[in-house]
């Protein structure tokens, strides 16, 4: 499925072998990401895409950018290290629901607490694809899988509510089937100064027979224009409400300081720093006279 109609700065050669299944929601999300980055006119040389492991985590492979495809669940620590080393870089994390909310759950919590200027796009298909169809942290109750043979019994992880509880400054949800709307949400997230989270619903056409394109269409709604994204309490109500899932920017606040500012990270990248000269070095060891 070639979703890429307009060429972008981020295109890979057409011969690139893509490991996603035909019809996968990843393709649509990828189009939205590329189009968003293109419209924001981000210099690919200054962009780093960071991911963990899984089918979603292969996304950076298919964009012509700097890429750190690290370990399962560890995209956020790696992204933090990259951002702190060179804050001029635009750092975007793309990974799946298992990677971000399961294996990397602790990092998700603490990355929000830091509020580094990083954008996180989570491919949320409510299933484990690459390991062949087990429940993910966001799987809905009742779905039978080769492991959850009597159906998923656990409470699904609610990323929006968790992020709100931690006072994440930018929280959005998108549906990959709507490329145009997803693109716009991603553009807002990348433009946002601080830790921005976009949880993106997308179907897994091979393993998730419940949460299909049709299901997502029927079970989501766009937040009305009247939605006040500054109102954390109402956002929490929407994030935890039963029934259809809201799409759009649920919460956005510029009140929290960005981590790089708090710890006073220089705009000179660390790779341009030299070790201290002899004078500074000896001044330090004079403390031990």
């Amino acid at each position, binding site marked *: 499925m070639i979703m890429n109609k307009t060429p972008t700065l981020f295109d890979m050669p057409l011969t690139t072998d893509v490991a996603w299944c035909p019809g996968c929601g990843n393709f649509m999300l990828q189009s939205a990401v590329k189009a968003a980055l293109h419209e924001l006119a981000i210099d690919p040389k200054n962009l780093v895409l960071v991911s963990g492991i899984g089918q979603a985590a292969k996304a950076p492979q298919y964009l012509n950018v700097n890429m750190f495809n690290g370990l399962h669940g560890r995209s956020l620590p790696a992204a*933090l*290290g*990259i951002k702190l080393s*060179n804050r001029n870089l635009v750092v975007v994390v793309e990974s799946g629901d298992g990677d971000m909310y399961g294996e990397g759950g602790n990092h998700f919590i603490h990355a929000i607490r830091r509020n580094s200027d990083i954008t996180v796009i989570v491919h949320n298909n409510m299933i484990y694809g690459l390991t062949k169809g087990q429940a993910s942290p966001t799987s809905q109750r009742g779905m039978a899988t080769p492991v959850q043979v009597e159906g998923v019994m656990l409470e699904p992880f609610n990323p929006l509510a968790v992020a709100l509880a931690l006072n994440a400054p930018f929280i959005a949800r998108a549906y990959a089937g709507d490329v145009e709307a997803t693109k716009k949400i991603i553009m807002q997230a990348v433009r946002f100064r601080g830790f921005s989270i976009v949880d993106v619903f997308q179907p897994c056409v091979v393993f998730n027979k419940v949460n299909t394109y049709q299901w997502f269409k029927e079970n989501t709604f766009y937040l009305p224009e009247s939605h006040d994204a500054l109102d954390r309490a109402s956002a929490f109500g929407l994030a935890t409400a039963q029934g259809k899932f809201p799409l759009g920017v649920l919460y956005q606040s510029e009140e929290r300081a960005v981590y790089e500012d708090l710890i006073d990270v220089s705009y000179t990248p660390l*790779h341009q720093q030299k070790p201290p000269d002899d004078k500074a*070095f000896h001044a*330090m060891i004079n403390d*031990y006279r």
Partner: protein
Amino acid sequence: MYHYLHDISMVFAGEAGQGLQTVTETLLRILEKSGYNLFSCTEYMSRIRGGCNTTEIRITDNNCTAYLKRIDMLFALSPLSVEHLQSRITNGTLIFAEKSEFTGRWKAEYIDTPFKKFAIETGSPVFANTVAAGTVLGIIGIPIERLTDYLREQFAAKGADIASKNCTAAELGYNFGREKTADKSILLPSQGTNEPAERLLMDGNAALGISAIAAGCNFISSYPMSPGTSLLTFLAAKSKTFGVIVDQAEDEIAAINAGIGASYAGARAVVSTSGGGFALMQEGVSLAGMLETPIVIHIGQRPGPATGLPTRTEQGDLNLALYAGHGDFARAILAPGTLEELIESMQQAFRLAHRFQIPVIVLTDQYLLDAITTIERKSIKRLPFKSSIIKTKADYQRFAFTVNGLSPRGVPGYGEGRVRVDSDEHDENGLITESFAIRRQMVEKRLKRKSALSESALMPSIIGSINEAATVVIAWGSNRGVLEEALDIIGSKKLAGLHFAQLFPLNPKLKPLLEKRKIVVMENNATGQFADLLSLQTGLSIAKRIVKATGEPFSVEEVVHALKTKINHDHE
């Protein structure tokens, strides 16, 4: 009559929170300024208040840097401490304690020393530490002015009243010390006879931190764990002055992944932990191997398995460091044993990590990190710095095949290229591949650097004269001081020592030093992990292993005993 002409060992013992560190630090500063050779080491319990902690201070003729079991003078600030140290107390030990604090545990031979009584007379029990410092100087006969001058300087900021009360407390203690021991004729070892070189007094923690700064380290991400925390706090204290980014990670997994991310983007990154934390970091060690991204890892060892003895010492994590991480890739392991070697260690680690694009582990331990001694300023080495980062061109390939397996290292945002790295097997561009042909080449690429890495490995330091020696005694890391002193005491030409400050890989030039000699390996673990490694790497057999895993360092006495037993056995 007590004469300590060459070597005095004083031990200060008390509860956590009693201010032992203040007393010993004060004394060390004053003794150092008076020109003595000093060594101090500390053992403490894993608690915040109470229990029993002890610090040994040695004043020696020759520069000795090892833990001595013998106690000449014990300053027991709590009743429990005498029981805790029972095995080290002999008839020759002078015990200074306050009778009123020892209800029911007092013994006639103790010397009733009014630490608290004088302090209260001066105005507050908080001056007890100053009384103790004064008492010590009185006993060993160092002019009181050195202490009072020091106290005035230290307490200058707190006002004249506090400074003057401290001086009064010091004088009370001092006069008591002089009177009480007037009949005991305590003579100090001679002050250093050499030219008065400029000396610095520091512990291993400071030396390691200084080393990281000297290496241009500008990023640390770590989760606190004794005794690895000290590097984190050292760099945090220096972060503003030297532009070091400090992040306290949510766990050790985050710490090493952030460190590798930082290094990918061009930081000179270090992570610090202990064995238990490093166990969590193993996936990151493997990642650094796959991404060919430098990372320096400090492991301050403490006894395991699991939580073990959190505040005590051991050299039990060599095997973990050696085998950590899945898959085949190159690594180096360093194990400094002196302040000089500590100050070189991080510089060496960063050089190796950056030159060979590998993880490099620096193994220390609680004993080494907390031990305090002097170092001459002129023996502090700085290794030259060379950046290994290139500006990329548009066609840049992070994993380009080269003759030696090392690809020029670019970082994102510097040059026209794209820097792409993948934990999956990848091609020269860093993109996922399942080509068996590329896999074969990449495996070779990652391992090719091993021969140059071995050839550049540090050779062990030779202690004594190896040519005549039939037996070599091998130690690594923190056991350098104790081996040097033990060999010196034994004074046999049949024995020589080798101290390894790099444990892996071993230099191929090492084998001739060992061949045709009996090999004795001493190490602070239960099984002889380095002995195994040495035997595996050289094919030579190990004649004897001297091991200890009680949570304490080796004492000079026990190493002397073990080596003498070995020599006698060989002669039978």
